[in-house]
């Protein structure tokens, strides 16, 4: 109970609006904005009408009963509905019957339990608001002084101020302690060395057509130049990927490429033409921005787009960036044809593929 409330009532005799004039209350002199104190409680229908209260009681009980039933229904659905059963209705479409039933029943069970409790609180429990004092968070001056005195006594008793040798060596020991905690993490991984500079490609490495690779990833066939028609796009990998086993993802993360064929006259860059084979050019599939796989090829413009951040590379001009956040051209893989007439790499990439890194230069 705030004192403001009492005083206001006493001073003004509880009469705030005394008289109406032009739609305005005439307010007593003094502070017209004074806090009138807590408003009187307005009883709810449930507080005055026993029938309404009874009705609310039944509603709460019904919700709790519904919760119980749904919980039992949940267990029945778990046991009885086959895992493969499907339900299909608008607007959800075909979904697992088990998941649908379990979700809905659990939802009803939880929701009606919670809803019942809240409805109970709102209808039948008290809604008479009352004030509680806040305690001062700040300590009293005496308490502060006492605490400081205790602290000082403790420090004094330790002698840390009088014995600088102990103090300094302690600070030194504590300062060095985090370092072993860092040191011990050294074996989290190998040092980078030059690993980011090379890929699985090397001279004569057969270019495998991704579309021919078996489901177990161990067989696939090469690509002959005549298969690569103008405007077509081939996703490809080195033959080493077929035998990479557990290292497959690591290998592909750097060595994935794609091939396109353009009219050699469309190719702007002389070096690009030289590194290609009769208009067939091979580029790294790993975006130079942050490493997503570039994927969206526009035949007409020879633009290659990375779906992650929309860096766009011009394949007719040495993979130059023409839009988006990537700063470097897509690296080109020099290719040729081997004795059997299959496309092969002439060497590894001439620069690191994928995102930039500090040591890249």
């Amino acid at each position, binding site marked *: 109970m705030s004192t403001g409330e009492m005083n206001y009532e006493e001073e003004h005799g509880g009469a705030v609006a005394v008289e109406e004039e032009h739609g305005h209350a005439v307010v007593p002199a003094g502070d017209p904005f004074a806090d*009138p104190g807590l408003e009187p409680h307005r009883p709810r229908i449930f507080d005055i009408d026993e029938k309404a209260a009874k009705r609310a009681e039944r509603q709460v009980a019904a919700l709790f009963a519904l919760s119980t039933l749904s919980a039992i229904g949940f267990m029945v659905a778990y046991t009885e509905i086959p895992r493969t059963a499907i339900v299909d209705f608008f607007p959800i479409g075909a979904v697992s019957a088990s998941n*649908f039933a379990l979700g809905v029943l659990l939802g009803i069970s939880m929701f009606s339990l919670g809803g019942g409790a809240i409805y109970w*609180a709102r209808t039948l429990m008290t809604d008479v608001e009352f004030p509680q004092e806040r305690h001062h968070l700040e300590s009293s001056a005496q308490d502060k002084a006492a605490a400081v005195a205790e602290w000082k006594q403790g420090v004094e008793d330790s002698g840390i101020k009088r014995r600088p040798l102990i103090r300094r060596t302690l600070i030194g020991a504590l300062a060095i302690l985090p370092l072993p905690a860092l040191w011990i993490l050294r074996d989290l*991984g190998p040092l980078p060395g030059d690993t980011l500079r090379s890929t699985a490609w090397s001279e004569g490495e057969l270019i495998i057509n991704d579309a021919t690779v078996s489901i177990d990833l161990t067989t696939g066939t090469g690509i002959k130049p005549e298969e690569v028609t103008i405007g077509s796009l081939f996703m490809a990998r080195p033959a080493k990927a077929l035998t990479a086993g557990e290292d497959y993802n690591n290998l592909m993360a750097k060595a994935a490429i794609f091939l396109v064929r353009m009219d050699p006259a469309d190719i702007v860059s002389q070096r690009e033409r030289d590194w290609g084979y009769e208009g067939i050019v091979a580029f790294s599939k790993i975006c130079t921005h942050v490493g997503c796989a570039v994927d969206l090829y526009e035949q007409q413009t020879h633009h290659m787009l990375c*779906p992650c951040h929309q860096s766009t590379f011009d394949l007719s001009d040495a993979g130059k960036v023409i839009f988006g956040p990537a700063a*470097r051209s897509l690296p080109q893989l020099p290719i040729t044809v081997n004795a059997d007439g299959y496309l092969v790499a002439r060497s590894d990439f001439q620069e690191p593929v994928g995102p930039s890194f500090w040591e890249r230069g």
Partner: protein
Amino acid sequence: MSATPAEFAPPATPAGKAADYLDQRLGIANAAKKQLRKIFPDHWSFMLGEIALYSFIILLLSGVFLTLFFTPSMNEVTYNGSYTPLDGIRMSEAYASTVNISFDVRGGLLMRQIHHWAALIFVMAITVHMLRIFFTGAFRKPREINWLIGFGLFVCALLEGFCGYSLPDDLLSGTGLRIAEGVILSIPIVGTYVSFFLFGGEFPGHDLVPRLFTIHILLVPGILLALITAHLILVFYQKHTQWAGPGRTEENVVGLPLLPVYTAKAGGFFFVIFGITAFLGGLVSINPIWSYGPYVPNQISAGSQPDWYIGFLEGSLRMMPNLEFNFWGHTLSLNVLIPALIVPGILFTGLALYPFIEAWVTGDRREHHILDRPRNVPTRTAIGVAGATFYGVLWLVGGNDLIATHFHLSLEQITWFGRFAVFLGPAFAFWITRRICFGLQRADRDKVLHGRESGIIVRAPSGEFSEIHEPLSQGDLHKLTAHDVHRPLSLTEVADSNGVPAPKMRQAKLRARVTKWYFGERVEKPTAEEYHDAISSGHH
């Protein structure tokens, strides 16, 4: 309204005996007598934090279930489970076990979907709760420390979400990790080393999923749990803030008691939130990893999107121009470093430090338990809206490809729009928000002086039309005038100019200038005199 203490009678019921047993060992009666009927104020906006808390509990429960069936391993297996489209495909054990949870464990898909939905709700609730705290000034003394704890919770929630999103090792999450690797590589000097230590070598390696698993189910949840505990203890100890109103003062808290009202309301609300996530998990498909396929570095699906709370980083990356420098054999990728680390770093640092910045500006050392209405602190509100606009533009550009395909717009134009909007948008938002705040303050002022518009038009004998204004209740008069109107500080107020050393003088000048920027333009509260004049004149 506390109960009258009765004489203590030896307990007769089993519950009473149990309580007495505990009290004789722990002295719980002393705490219970104070806390059982603790008062909490009632307002819808105070339940936002509750939603975050309850979704965290749901995350713990559903998460524990998932750990019983999930295999955190990147060892390769060949799938031959019941989802035939993936039959014979090589994949990590992590991915295979996630597919199994979805198809072969009864209730597994439900728990996965509840877990994912609850995670989205968790971060959303934290974000909106934080905005509520910001715009109502609830971070002011004595709650600055709890603001920092809350900020820590926000950052941990983002990290936790990203780790969890990455665990199934599907195409989408692997792409997210690839982007994360690219971002780490852009860090000058140490980036490459950090990446190799995190991934256990080159990307993707075989170590990441088990490492993220430990971070996701032990390390970060442990920190979250500790911070949540501290957060709630402080809310309890410092007592909740409340809105201005009749009988509400800085010295009290007005509301309803913990037992029974908030026990029922808050406890019930937990089950309501759980019920809603269960409905979502049962009815709305989320993250169907089986349709993405296992992660392979050479594949991608167009229109890939991260969870909503990572979207702003994605947009930031997308809109950055391609700035990169090479010097002395090194590469500095500002095109990645700035949008992915520096911009969020500045945004988050500003967020964390705001209470301290504002306290420095206002020089206000008082405790505040009565909340500000956002309109009454226009500059703070405008800063908040500008920050939200900045975040919003980044977030929108994070979906530039979807916007382009859905609305048939040019991707390039959306990106260029974003590049300008990210600067102009917040500036405009700042300006317009302040104007709106001043307008609302003036409307409040008019309401106090002339009463509320009744909608009743009367015609005077002279033919003049006028609307009847009804007087406000004393409670409303008080409520609309309870706030402080801050004023800029003059240089002499900031610092006593006599003998202030030069560096301090510079700081004082800066502060005087900043207070002018904050509070230079303001709408004054009506004075008692103005009020009496308005009433006696009778004109509206």
